[in-house]
């Protein structure tokens, strides 16, 4: 291709290129929807048209071969149309109700579950982990696979009190919305950065490294005759911001990395305003390939919520109603010093009233 032909800044394809005809026709004139069964919805348009959606779960990490499989399904049942959701599920859009069951059968044969609609668990929003990221304190895909294996039935049914959104991020950068999830699994480092003094000054700017630390734990220092930095380990809270700006400050550490578990966040404005997730379990070690302790903890939390929450009550709303002491009691999770906030808004998280449940 010659230089002059090089296209830039063309942007993505315009969405309407790919909209199914029924969507184009009824764009913006949908009236209401109904959930027909797990994973299947119908949307009614003012025109009287009905659009059926079948949603199926994916591991997000997809080979082109599976994508082509999805394409085949779309061609067979949906006039070649399909979409992905904001939680990386695939949605097949149909106009012919009779095709729903055959489609489902095909998709299941391919190994993908149908569900995630209504009061169900949807796919876990997650990140790269050891598959691709330099920062990861745990593997994203592996933990997610194990947790979803244990919860798959709750993806494929609709017996929960409300929606349950789980997310995982493999480090404190929190790619995704784990800070506002019903349950969040978060990779954490627990050892202060190990500094590679021999290269630091060559590849990083010392003032930048020093400035990167929010707790001022990093000081310039001359070590073994080299300009470098030293870390006051007592002040380190393992945020890895130093590593982000300087590769010579390694946080990854097989002995100490692991995951923490957070609960009670949400994003929607439905009923309660959006909330942050709060710390449930400060640390569980990495135990690949099954991460059984993580799975067990998540399942326990889901089960206790599912058995006790009222209709429509998301995790955080339920905990707000029963109180945190009861949450710890019911889940059997130990309450520790680490649960008590000591970051900048800490004081506001103390219990400043005599509203107490015994």
């Amino acid at each position, binding site marked *: 291709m010659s230089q002059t032909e090089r296209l830039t800044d063309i942007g993505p394809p315009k969405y309407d290129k790919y909209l199914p005809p029924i969507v184009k026709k009824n*764009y913006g004139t949908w009236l209401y929807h109904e959930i027909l069964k797990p994973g299947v919805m119908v949307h009614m348009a003012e025109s009287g048209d009905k659009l059926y959606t079948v949603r199926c779960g994916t591991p997000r990490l997809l080979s*082109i071969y599976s994508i082509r499989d999805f394409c085949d399904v779309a061609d067979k049942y949906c006039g070649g149309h399909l979409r992905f959701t904001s939680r*990386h599920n695939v949605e097949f859009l149909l106009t012919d109700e009779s095709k729903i069951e055959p489609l489902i059968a095909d998709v299941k044969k391919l190994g993908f579950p149908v569900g995630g609609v209504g009061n169900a668990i949807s796919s876990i929003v997650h990140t790269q982990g050891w*598959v691709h990221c330099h920062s990861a304190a745990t593997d994203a895909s592996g933990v997610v696979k194990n947790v979803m294996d244990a919860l798959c039935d709750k993806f494929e049914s609709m017996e929960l009190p409300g929606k349950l959104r789980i997310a995982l991020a493999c480090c404190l950068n929190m790619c995704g919305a784990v800070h506002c999830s019903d349950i969040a699994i978060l990779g954490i480092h627990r050892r202060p950065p190990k500094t590679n003094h021999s290269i630091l000054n060559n590849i990083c700017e010392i003032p930048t490294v020093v400035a990167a630390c929010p707790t001022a734990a990093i000081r310039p220092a001359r070590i073994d005759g080299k300009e470098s930095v030293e870390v006051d380990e007592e002040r380190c809270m393992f945020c890895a911001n130093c590593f982000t700006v300087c590769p010579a400050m390694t946080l990854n550490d097989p002995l100490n990395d692991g995951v923490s578990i957070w609960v009670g966040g949400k994003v929607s404005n*439905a009923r309660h305003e959006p909330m942050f997730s709060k710390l449930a379990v400060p640390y569980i070690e990495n135990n690949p390939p099954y991460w059984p302790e993580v799975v067990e903890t998540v399942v326990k939390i889901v089960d206790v919520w599912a058995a006790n929450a009222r209709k429509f009550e998301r995790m955080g709303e339920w905990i707000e109603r029963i109180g945190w002491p009861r949450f710890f009691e019911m889940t059997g999770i130990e309450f520790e010093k680490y649960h008590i906030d000591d970051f900048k808004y800490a004081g506001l998280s103390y219990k400043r009233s005599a509203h107490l449940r015994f």
Partner: protein
Amino acid sequence: MADGQTNGKTPKLDKLDKGPWPSFVKEIKRAAEKNPMSKDLLGQLELSYEDKIGHWKHGGIVGVLGYGGGVIGRYSDVPEKFPNVAHFHTIRVNMPAGWFYTSDALRTLCDIWEKHGSGLTNMHGSTGDIVFLGTRTEQLEPIFSELTKEGFDLGGSGSDVRTPSACVGPARCEWACYDTLKLCYDLTMEYQDELHRPAFPYKFKFKCSGCPNDCVASVARSDMSIIGTWKDDIQVDQAAVKEYEDKGLNIQRDVCGNCPSKCMDWDGKTLEIDNRLCVRCMHCINAMPKALRPGKERGACLLLGSKAPIVEGAQLSSVLVPFMKMEPPYQELKDLCEKIWDLWCEEGKARERVGEFIQRVGLGNFLEAIEVEPSPYMIAHPRDNPYIFYEDYFEEGDEEDEDEDGDE
């Protein structure tokens, strides 16, 4: 560290090959059958499972000509063992708004990626891009040129506008209060330069949700969150409400009882809503989609500044404009964004998200600088501390003319 087992064998990962949930290991293996990069990825990942640590080096800067973003450089720290992932860069391809595809479009993408990369993807990345997972530096230009030829372009990375995303909106949802897809596409096109050539203090994300359900989690993870809402009354079909009750919904307890503004009442026949008090939370509408609908005077609320915790703590976006009509060419929105960018580029520190910048300078001062009037809609509540920076004071002698004019 690595032992013989990783030479082609992956006993740990093999265990994740089964189970009810679809397996990422299966996906990698499937690609690995034909693709040496995927094969080495599998090997290196097995090594990580053994060592309990990732084997990637800190990312380097790679990219395509003229673009400052869209590619995440990645190199193995054990290239001697896994030479095919010595380079393993990620390409972010800007998805179509709403993630609608045709099979043709997807096949085209797969074909390009089969030729030039690992054959592995994320559909999609957390920001919303199509993520092509793993290729070599020298493949970047060819991939880019084939993508653009097919009508695709790269998404954002680094300190730029990131790939805007949108919920399915009017394409399939009855609650969309504005056209999320159109706005998302319009913003993406308008800000191609800002998206491809990082020139900000840090990243800036747009997310468009058609209603307060916020199905793209915009309030939690976009610097500019555009959430549809309405100003007038909820549309009620009383007969349909009754139907829900008849079908077993306890309306008083589960609908009215969950209304955060306690503004609803159900007497068994009529659902009364005090719309002046309704906070537009969507709950009653969600619970009875056939009976209730958002009002007719629709637009969006603009909220600013959410982000993940690094390093000042996570933030949710906060209200900047409680209600704005959302109609092309969206000039009011764009003017506002550009004013914000000008200020932030001028005064923001490196790696300071706009939300952190506002906290540092104070929302009041920020508003003054972007010439937006302060409004009680922007706050959960007024200050509760008495430490007010009054800006003017009288000096002796001002007494005469009673004129306010301090020393500033």
